[in-house]
C-alpha cells in the first residue's frame, strides 16, 4: 500500500467558499453483524464549521463518526451501505486507500491515547508516517501544532519528557496536536473532553472554536451544553436514526421533532 504525499498541495487548489459542503452523507447504513447501528443517515456536513452529533449512548453517533475515516474497518464484523461523498469520491468505496484517507480525515478519541514516547516524538512520529523526517521541518511542525492546540506554552520546556507525564487534558490536546500535524481537512472528535475535568474541557472547547477556521470539525458529544456552545449544526441520533439535523440554534431552541425536544430537555437519554 503506497501512500501519496501530495495531499497538502491538493488542498490548496480547492477554492474556499463560505458554506461549502465537505462531506455528503447519503443513505448511510452501518451494521455490526446483523445489528444495524446506523439507519439510512442522510445529511451534509459543512466545510469549516463544527458539526455536533448528539444522542444517548448506543445511538450510533460514534459508529457514524468512525465510518468517516474508515476506523470501522478495524472491526471485522462491521460493514456499511450507502455513501459518504468527500470531494468527488465515495469514502466507503472498497478502492479507497484508507491510509491516505486517514491523513486527510484525522480523528481524536474519547480517551487520550498518546504513544508511549516523548511529547516531541508523539508528533514527530506521526510525521514519519507521512514521510517527513528532516529535523528542521519536524521541529517547525511540532511547534506549530502544539501552538495550534494551545499546549506549546505548557510544554515547550519539556518536549522530551514522556507524554505520560502530562495531565489528562494536556494529553488530549497533545493527541489533537498530533492529528493537526498531519494537516487534515476534516477533524473527527469522539467525545474529546468527556474524560476530562471542567477546566481542561473549557480549553478543548476554546481550541475547537479556534480550529474551525482551518478545519471542518465533526464532534460527538454527550454534553449538550458543549454542543450548543461550540457547534454550528447539530444532528440528533436516536437508535441509529438521524432524528433531526439543523442549525444548532434551531435544534436547541425550536426543534421540529418531539423526540429531539424530549432529549435536549432531559426527559430521557
Amino acid at each position: 500500500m503506497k501512500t501519496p504525499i501530495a495531499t497538502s498541495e491538493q488542498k490548496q487548489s480547492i477554492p474556499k467558499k463560505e458554506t461549502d459542503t465537505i462531506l455528503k452523507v447519503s443513505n448511510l447504513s452501518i451494521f455490526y453483524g446483523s445489528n444495524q447501528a446506523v439507519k439510512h443517515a442522510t445529511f451534509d456536513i459543512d466545510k469549516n464549521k463544527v458539526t455536533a452529533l448528539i444522542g444517548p449512548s448506543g445511538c450510533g453517533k460514534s459508529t457514524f463518526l468512525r465510518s468517516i475515516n474508515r476506523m470501522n474497518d478495524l472491526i471485522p464484523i462491521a460493514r456499511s451501505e450507502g455513501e459518504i461523498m468527500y470531494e468527488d469520491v465515495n469514502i466507503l468505496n472498497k478502492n479507497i486507500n484508507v491510509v491516505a484517507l486517514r491523513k486527510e480525515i484525522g480523528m481524536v478519541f474519547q480517551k487520550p491515547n498518546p504513544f508511549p514516547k516523548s511529547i516531541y516524538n508523539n508528533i514527530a512520529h506521526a510525521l514519519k508516517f507521512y514521510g517527513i523526517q528532516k529535523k528542521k521541518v519536524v521541529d517547525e511542525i511540532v511547534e506549530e501544532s502544539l501552538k495550534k492546540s494551545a499546549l506549546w506554552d505548557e510544554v515547550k520546556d519539556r518536549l522530551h519528557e514522556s507524554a505520560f507525564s502530562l495531565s489528562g487534558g494536556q494529553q488530549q490536546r497533545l493527541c489533537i496536536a498530533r492529528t493537526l500535524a498531519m494537516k487534515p481537512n476534516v477533524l473527527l472528535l469522539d467525545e474529546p473532553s468527556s474524560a476530562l475535568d471542567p477546566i481542561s474541557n473549557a480549553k478543548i472547547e476554546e481550541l475547537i472554536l479556534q480550529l474551525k477556521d482551518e478545519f471542518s470539525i465533526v464532534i460527538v458529544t454527550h454534553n449538550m451544553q458543549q454542543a450548543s456552545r461550540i457547534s454550528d449544526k447539530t444532528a440528533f441520533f436516536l437508535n441509529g436514526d438521524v432524528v433531526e439535523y439543523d442549525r444548532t440554534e434551531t435544534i436547541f431552541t425550536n426543534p421540529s421533532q418531539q423526540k429531539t425536544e424530549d432529549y435536549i430537555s432531559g426527559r430521557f437519554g
Partner: protein
Amino acid sequence: MENTTTSARERLVKSNKNKSNGELRGKMIVTLSAIIMITATVAITVFLATKGLQAFLVNGVSPIEFLTSTDWNPTDEGNPKFGAFPFIYGSLAVTLLSALIAAPIGIGAAIFMTEIAPAWGRKILQPVIELLVGIPSVVYGFIGLTVLVPFIRNQFDGIGYSLLAGTIVLSVMILPTITTIATDAMGTLPRNLREGSYALGATRWQTIRKVLVPAALPSLLTAIVLGMARAFGEALAVQMVIGNSRAIPSSILDTSATLTSIITLNMGYTTYGSVENNTLWSMGLILLIISFVFILIIRYLSSRRRI
C-alpha cells in the same frame, strides 16, 4: 443466629470459640504449601552453595582457575586441571545464539497472531505452540541426533556434532516460550494505541513497527530473557548433539560443551565427595547464579514496563 439475647461483645469480638474450623484448616493448608515451597528453594540453594563451594574451600581448587582456565582434566593423576571456562563459554554461546535465532521468529509469529491474522493465525499457531512445549527434550535431542547432526556433517566439514546443532535444537525448544509471552505482551497493548496510530494514517506495518513493538518492548525483552533462561538450563537435548569436547569452539561448526551437558555426562562417573564431583557441583552453582541473573534482568525489565 437463634440466640438473639447474646451481647454484641459475644457476637462480634474475636475469640477462639467462634473461629470456624474450616477457616483455620484452609489457612493451614495454603500456609503449609507456601512453607514447603520456600523451604525447598532455600534448601536447594543452601545445599548447592555448600557443595559448590567445597571444591574451592576444601579441595583447594582455585576459583580463578575454575572460572578462567580453559584446561579441564580432572582425572589426571599427578596434576588434575579444573578450568571450566570452555563450558561456561559454551553455555553462554549456545544460549545467545539460540536466542538470536528464536527471538525474531518467536516475536514475528506473535505479531502475526495478534496483528495480522488474529482469527485463524491463533487457531493454527496456538496448538502448534502447545505441541512444541509438550515434546520432551529427549525427543528433541534424538531428532537432532538423527536428522540434524548427519545433515550438518554432510553439508559442512566436521563431524556434525557442533555448537550449531545445539543452537538449532535449543532455538526450536525455546521458540514456544518466546512466542507465548510475546503474544501476551502484544495482546495486552491497549486497543486505543492501535486506533491512535491508524487514525493518524499509519499503515499496519508502521503501526506495528513504530508504535506497538516499542510499546511492548520491555515485555518482549522479558520473553527473550525467559527463553534464554530455558536454553541455559537445558541439558539433555544439548548434550546429545553438541559433541561435548573440552576445548573452546573456534567456530559454530566445532564441537563444544555446556555446563549442563558436562554435569549430566560426568555425574555418574565420579565418586561423591571427590574433587571432580565437587567441581561439578560448582558448575551447578554457577548455573544457579546465572539463572538468578536472568531473573534479575526480567525483574528489571518488568519494572520498566510502565513508561
